[in-house]
Structures are given as structure tokens and as C-alpha cells.
């Protein structure tokens, strides 16, 4: 299995790709766009990160698109987000498919539900002592049911009350997480600094917000970020590399037409 530290040593960007939405009225075209982005990430040697019903909006799953479109998988170049809003049958189906496809890297998150998304129940995964399934229980389950199959990562949210968030993180690490990806940051962040100090041995990847729209970021994290009208994602990315040279970088909402070619060579 690949080592999550390799992404940092080899300067491999994590590039988020949003899968086509379930409500799409032009699914075939969306699938083609997805394929094009995915192949570009493969060719760049980066790691394609595919979200799981992000913000509770229903989309198709990464593994089924890769299967259906017969996309190539290199074990260190694909990461699938996996949250707790699946039935047990669907969850196992996803994990088995990933295993068969050779997808190793999973980002385990609690996730956002919706009226339409089923929530994994504690009894489904023999976690009778908890009231609801979070990323911690999901991590434990995957380690138990699929030993030595996946490299599991977790999220860190520097916008949540810190003591609560660090307590959660320690449970996640205990449950077997081997890398950490932060929520998007747009400047040096004291909670991220604390994270690096407390977990020097675990690879940390900071998420860079590549959209010019900071209001979307506020929506995504649920807290208002004061808006800088002149927000420059590329300059911010450069700055994050300088501030956090020991970290990997995860690019969210990267513009494949306008930005993708500009990020090459930024990570030095």
C-alpha cells in the first residue's frame, strides 16, 4: 500500500473533482467532463479526490463512475471521500468496489445528510454503544471489515471550537486514521499550527480554496469569513506553500480551464 507521506514528499497535489449530480439533466455530458478532468489529473501525476454527496447534494459515487467509464486507477492517484450517509449494503458495495478497483485512499468523514440520504445506523456496523455513526465508527468498521486494504484519512475543521475539534481528532486518530486533511484555509491559521505541533508524525494536507468566491467558502464551512473582494486563489496557494512547507495541499474548486496549468510548478 502507498504511504500517505509520499504525496507530500513527491509534491503531489490532491485535486478535488465533483462527480455529476443525480439531478443532472445532461448526465452523459457531465460524465465526459468528469472523465476529462480525471484524466488530466492522472496525466499530471496528481491525486484525484472524488467527493461523496458533498453538502448533502446527491451525486453519483466515484467508484461507480470509474467502473462505468473504465477509468484507470493508480493506487496513489485516487482518493474517494466516504461519509456516513449510506445504507450498510451500499457502504459495503462501495468498499468492495474500491478494493477491486485498487483504490486505496479513502477520506472518511461524517458528512452532510439530506432528506434523501440514508444514515448509517450504529447497529449496522455493530457499534451499539454509540447513538449515531460518525467518522470514528466508520473508520473502526473499515479497519475491522477490510483489514490492510485502505489508507484512511480524516478531516480537521479549524473553524469549529478548538477543544471540541481536537478531542474529536484524537478519537479519529485512535480509530486508525493515518492522514489529515483540513477544511479550506486562506491564510495561516492558529488551529492548523496547533495541529502540526500536536501531530508531527501524521501527514497533514491543507485545503486551498481555489474559487474566487469566498461566500461559497462561508457557506461550505457554515461560518462567515470576512470577504476580501480581491481574493486571489493562486497567490494564496503560493503563500500556503510558504507558510506550511511540511504540508500537502488539497485543491478545492480548481478551475480546470483557467487555473490548472498555472498551478504546475508552484510547489517548490
Amino acid at each position, binding site marked *: 500500500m502507498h504511504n500517505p507521506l509520499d504525496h507530500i514528499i513527491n509534491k503531489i497535489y490532491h485535486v478535488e473533482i465533483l462527480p455529476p449530480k443525480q439531478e443532472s439533466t445532461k448526465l452523459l455530458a457531465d460524465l465526459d467532463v468528469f472523465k476529462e478532468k480525471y484524466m488530466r489529473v492522472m496525466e499530471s501525476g496528481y491525486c484525484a479526490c472524488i467527493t461523496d454527496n458533498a453538502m448533502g447534494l446527491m451525486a453519483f459515487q466515484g467508484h461507480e463512475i470509474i467502473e462505468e467509464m473504465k477509468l484507470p486507477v493508480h493506487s496513489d492517484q485516487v482518493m474517494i471521500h466516504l461519509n456516513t450517509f449510506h445504507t450498510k449494503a451500499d457502504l459495503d458495495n462501495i468498499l468492495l468496489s474500491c478494493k477491486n478497483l485498487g483504490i486505496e485512499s479513502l477520506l472518511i468523514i461524517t458528512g452532510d445528510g439530506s*432528506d434523501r440520504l*440514508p444514515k448509517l445506523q450504529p447497529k449496522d456496523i455493530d457499534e451499539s454503544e454509540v*447513538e*449515531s455513526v460518525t467518522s470514528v465508527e466508520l473508520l473502526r468498521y473499515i479497519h475491522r471489515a477490510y483489514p490492510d486494504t485502505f489508507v484512511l484519512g480524516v478531516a480537521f475543521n479549524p473553524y469549529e471550537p478548538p477543544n471540541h475539534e481536537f478531542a474529536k481528532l484524537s478519537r479519529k486518530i485512535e480509530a486508525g486514521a493515518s492522514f489529515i486533511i483540513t477544511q479550506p484555509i486562506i491564510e495561516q491559521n492558529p488551529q492548523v499550527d496547533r495541529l502540526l505541533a500536536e501531530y508531527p508524525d501524521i501527514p497533514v494536507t491543507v485545503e486551498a480554496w481555489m474559487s474566487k468566491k469566498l461566500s461559497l467558502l462561508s457557506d461550505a464551512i457554515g*461560518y462567515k469569513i470576512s470577504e476580501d473582494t480581491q481574493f486571489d486563489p493562486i497567490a494564496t496557494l503560493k503563500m500556503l506553500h510558504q507558510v506550511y512547507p511540511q504540508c500537502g495541499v488539497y485543491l478545492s474548486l480548481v478551475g480546470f480551464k483557467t487555473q490548472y496549468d498555472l498551478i504546475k510548478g508552484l510547489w517548490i
Partner: protein
Amino acid sequence: MITKTEIEKANFRNVWVIGEVEDGTILPVTHELLGAARNLADKRGCEVWAVLMGSEIQNPQLFSFGADVCLLVDDHRINHFIDELESKILSRLIEKYLPEIILCGATSRGRALIPRVAVSCYCGLTADCTQLDIDPDNGDLLQTRPAFGGNILATIRSSNHRPQIASVRPRVMKIPQPDNDRDGITIFEKILPSDEINNKKVVDVYHDSQSAINLADAEIIIAGGRGTHGKAGFELLHQLAQKVGGAVGASRAAVDSGWIPYTHQVGQTGQTVQTKIYIACGISGQIQHLVGMQSCDLIIAIDKNPDTPMMQMADIAITGDMFEILPELINEINQR
């Protein structure tokens, strides 16, 4: 098209209230409807009839609440709710007595029963009304109801059909002060001929302690969401609810997490509530939740995050941790 001419329409008189009876007891929604019916009947210059279907109905004389006539169908075969049976009885009574307006409760029972009646009588039906009035120009019933999750108020009429039927949202109309001097007449009606009674039967009934605290009946709802963090958080909500005589509500996220049963869910796929006070604890306020409670009189939100939609909608927004604030609030109330 089976519309009614003005002459035909004139044959239809009086305002009917379809009472709700359970185990022989008349439920309060009946009294609420009588208040609304009295108001309409006074404007129309006609009578209010209370129609009661049930088995061994206790104290069926509803004159003190504004009824002029009580139409009783008391039969042991109406001990449980059989939709088809009650709708057939009612359709037959409508044909016999020709009421102009019919009100029933927008309860699970009323909303199952009354559409069948409206179809068989070919007349208009408006669901879940919150305001009723008489058009002074032509005497039509003006029925106002929220739609799109309370985002639009639509006023509806049914000018060319009689009777005009409305189901009325419980707890919206006020129960009138009983006037014990009022009197009226009681008419006893028989159930259907037995060959018209179908084979449907209720084989088991159980009252559920969880849904016994009916959200629609509460004046105060203390509701919890994702920020309630689990059953322990809901325990705190239950304590406060008990203190103030309220009910506990929940967001979809809390229900899906298994912290509290579905019967407590407020919102699009749960219940719509219209209480005096709604205290939202740790509920960010997805639109699907807001549409279920935005008509409450006073909305209080408690959340660590001051920027959520719920905190923006609230009349009183408290920034803080519900686990610290609610115990203090219970303390404050204890001291009074």
C-alpha cells in the same frame, strides 16, 4: 360539469362541523371548529350543526360551544376509524340535509375522511385552512391556507359547488367560552344498512407514549438538531419541555441520527407546527426545517454559530452553548 345554479345553491343551508370522536370522547379540535363555524353561521344568518360519528359518545350536546343542532350517529360499529364507512354515512347525511359549509379538522383522520366525501359529492375541498370568512358580496366561503410550506397564503373559493368543504388546521381557531344557557336539538341518525358496510377492520390499536406528546397540540416546542449531539442533549430538552409544559421537536438530522423518533420531526418530511413559542437548539435551519416552523409566533434560537439561517430568522437569537444555557434557563424558571 356538475355545477350548481343560484337556485340550487339556495337549497344548501347551515354550517356543519364534523366532530372528532375517539373512544367516545369528543376531541378539542371539535370545539375549535364550532367557534369558527359559529362565526361563519352568524354572518350567513344560519345554524351550526355538529355532526358526531362514534360509539358511546360522551356528552354529545355541544350547544354550549355554539351548536344549534347535534346530528348523532352513535353505533358500536364506529368504534375505530373506518374511512369508507364514515365517508359514506357523511355523504348520505349531506344528501339528506344539504349543508352549505362543512368544516372538519385537518387531522390525520379528517384529512383521510373528507377528500372521499368531497369526491363523492363533487364539491370543492380546501385543505388545512388557517382563516375562514364569508364574502359579503355573494356569501361564498373564503378559505385561506398556507401552501409551499407556509411561503404563500392562498385564498380559495368554490362558487359553483355546494357544499363548500374545508379542513381546518388544529390549534389555529380559538375554543369559544362555553355558554351553558344555550340549547338546541339533537337528531339521531342510523348507521348505514349493513350490506353497505365494508369488511375493513382495525385489528389492533396502540397509543404511543412517544407520539402522545403531540407536536400539533403543544403551545411550546423545544426542538433540537445536529448541535444537540445525541440522546443526552435531548434529555436536556425533555427536562425543559416538562418544566414549561411543552413538547420536544427535532430536525431531520437529529431524527436520522437516531436520537429521537420520527414522530417528533418538524419540517418538510415531518410535521408543520404553529406554536406560540419555538425554541430551536443547535438547529442550523435548513430550508426543509424552516418551512415546518416559520409560522410559530415567537422563534428563539440557541446556537454556537451566530450566522446560521435559524439564527437570522429567530426573533431572539442566543449565541452560546445549549448545554450551558439550558440548565441555567431551567434554574431561572425554578426560581420563579
